[in-house]
């Protein structure tokens, strides 16, 4: 047993923290979130140069060939910022989908571009605003000549706007889930930014979009099994991002209890205020250690299907609740869009929904451990 980061990981952590301090200080981040600027191209390019896109992709395809834990260490620091952008969506999840599902030619063609940032590939899996899982895939992919015609609406595609390409999940004539890489500028593709108490989502519409067989990435087991196995590696990295975010909130909030004085004393002297910080600590550490153990299992080749769902549920809830408890401490000041907490608060809501809510993942966790006798259709 050894529960600390190794020397390389500590170095990566420091490099990432220093990079963010220099490139995206807190007031800049806050400004991006207030203006809903979810993609900063110049910064994205720089992160590609330091090797943070496609970290877990094998080196032969232009990736970093690192362990999941190494990648998670960097994403924890991105989450502290919280750096907005498709670092996870393209650099981890899309890359993994291609690695798991695409032909060798396709991997060779696309993975290096994802890793150097010249292609921003964004997965669009669920059509539904609330649901996730295979049943949430409703866009149709009907056979047409040598390929398919894709029609449907993905209501909320996280990090949709900066996409150069999408990986679209759809159902074929037989109702099976299929995946295709589709150019953002292909005829029939339209995209609209979605605004609200959220950041980075766009609606993507496909209207009779022609897709060739060579753009499909269904592996050998079909589209959903590609999604499942890619998520099985990628989700814990998203969890690490949320863990970093919780850590930042924890530190910000604790510091505020020392400096904010009311009724003649620092608010941290009030036990009810202390309780909020204690609650953040529990969400933070629950998310941290659930995530770390899951990453360790995956890096060690130990079965971790239920653990991945568990980490996603715990980390999403932790991020959301940490923001809420922090709001209790910061009160009015923390609701100003110029306050660092607001960036987290907005993002925590988006990430609560992204790739399945905590409820979805809790149920998937139990289903993985204790399969139901009666399978639902779909």
């Amino acid at each position: 047993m050894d529960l600390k980061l190794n020397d390389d990981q500590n170095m990566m952590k420091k490099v990432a923290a220093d990079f963010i301090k220099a490139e995206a200080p807190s007031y800049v981040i806050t400004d991006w979130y207030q203006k809903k600027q979810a993609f900063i191209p110049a910064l994205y390019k720089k992160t590609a140069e330091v090797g943070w896109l496609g970290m877990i992709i094998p080196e032969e395809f232009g990736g970093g060939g690192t362990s999941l834990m190494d990648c998670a260490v960097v994403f924890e620091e991105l989450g502290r910022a919280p750096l907005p952008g498709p670092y996870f969506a393209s650099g981890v999840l899309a890359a993994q989908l291609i690695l798991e599902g695409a032909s060798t030619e396709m991997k060779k063609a696309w993975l290096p571009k994802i890793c150097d940032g010249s292609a921003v590939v964004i997965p669009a899996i669920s059509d539904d605003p609330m649901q996730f899982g295979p049943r949430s895939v409703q866009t149709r992919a009907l056979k047409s000549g040598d390929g398919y015609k894709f029609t449907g609406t993905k209501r909320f595609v996280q990090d949709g706007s900066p996409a150069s390409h999408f990986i679209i999940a759809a159902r074929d004539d037989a109702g099976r889930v299929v995946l295709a890489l589709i150019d953002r500028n292909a005829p029939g593709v339209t995209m609209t930014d979605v605004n609200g108490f959220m950041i980075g989502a766009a609606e993507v519409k496909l209207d009779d979009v022609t897709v060739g067989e060579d753009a499909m990435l269904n592996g050998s087991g079909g589209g959903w099994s590609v999604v499942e196995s890619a998520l099985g590696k990628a989700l814990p990295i998203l969890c690490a991002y949320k863990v970093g975010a919780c850590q930042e909130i924890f530190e910000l909030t604790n510091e505020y209890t020392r400096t904010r004085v009311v009724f003649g004393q620092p608010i941290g002297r009030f036990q009810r205020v202390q309780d909020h910080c204690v609650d953040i600590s529990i969400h933070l550490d629950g998310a941290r250690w659930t995530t770390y153990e899951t990453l360790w299992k995956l890096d060690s080749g130990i079965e971790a299907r239920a653990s991945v769902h568990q980490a996603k549920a715990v980390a999403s809830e932790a991020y959301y609740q940490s923001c809420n408890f922090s709001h209790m401490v910061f009160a009015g000041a923390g609701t100003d869009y110029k306050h660092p907490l607001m960036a987290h608060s907005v993002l925590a809501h988006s990430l609560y929904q992204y790739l399945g809510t905590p409820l979805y993942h809790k149920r998937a966790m139990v289903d993985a451990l204790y399969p139901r006798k009666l399978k639902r259709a779909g």
Partner: protein
Amino acid sequence: MDFSLQQDTPEMSAFRQEIRAWLADNMKGGEHLRWSGNWSTRENDEEYRFRRALAGKLGQKRWLFPTYPVKYGGAGLTLDHQFVLETEIDRYGLSLGSVFYTLARLVAPALMKFGTEEQKLEFLPPMMRGELAVWQLLTEPQGGSDVANCQTKAIRDGDHYVVNGQKVLVGHHLPPDYLWTFVCTNPAGKRHENLGWLYIPANLPGITLQHMHLMMGIKNAVFFDNVRVPAKYLVGGENNGWKVANSYLELEHGGGGSVAEQPLFKRLIEHCQKSEFDGESLIEDQDIRDEIADMLIDLDVQRLMGLRNFWHRYVREPHPYGGPQFLYFQRMVRLRNSERVQKILGYDALVPDNSVHEVADFEYTVRSGPGWLHGGGTLDTDRLIIARRLGLGRPAQETAPTTVGE
């Protein structure tokens, strides 16, 4: 990062085999018994006798306190050995710290750090041999969480301390051998600087025990009426008791960590798999599955916090707030599980099942939910300690004391 618990070196693997075989042999005859929860005070003399005899046998092997120096009765082994022992005995639903009811596991480290050489040589070996039931006497009727407000007085009189006062909510239904007692050695002294610890033989004249019937079972009130305790039983020096308390209570407050598994959850799943309502297995019911999910997550986070604390102790870098955080979280999980078990079982959750160990018993789970909110300090003192360790509202953070002796 490495979470594996079972990757033994060849040396450890041989040790594990030895322990496993020894336990298989020495646990014979206890199959029909129901272990009570760690510090529970359930009355079952047959269980108690078996466990006490087992502790004696483990003590003879020097396995109760494996990491302590040989001259004090330990085995001089490593923490790895202790870890193997803990995980193997956990397979039987027991832990090294509570093979039978004694708080020697908390007192021994305090003696190691604060005792004189003479005290260590005299007091430790019988404790390590598993011969002594030691109670901790901290709580007083008016004190509760404010332990420093200690009214039990121990006034020096020649070679003795004369002890007068009352302690409550302590011990077990069977009498103790020694009383590890927090006393006020200087009633006129400043708060925190007027306290001491006495290791009192329980058979001294003037000591009276009285059972208290509580939610969790039987505890006791202990009365001291002019009890003359030889001065050699004062540990840590006069007026130094607060320092001793601070150091060793970190162990009681979760800082020692835990590697135990959770038998309750397994049993609940089995119940849901074999029980039906209206022709459908309970495990197929979505509402029940949702309860199970929340319970599993809570227990898993608790397990991971315990593991983290264990590791911090193992590498001798105390976690800044991990001890009280674990304890607080565990209390809240127990309370939530208390309700979850009721939601799933209904009335059945209120009836004890004497065929299983208490830690896996549903009725015990329900009863111990509110019952465990305050054993060894309340959930609110836990949070207070966390806040101080985090330095909330303070310029400096309090550091966690080293969990001593092991």
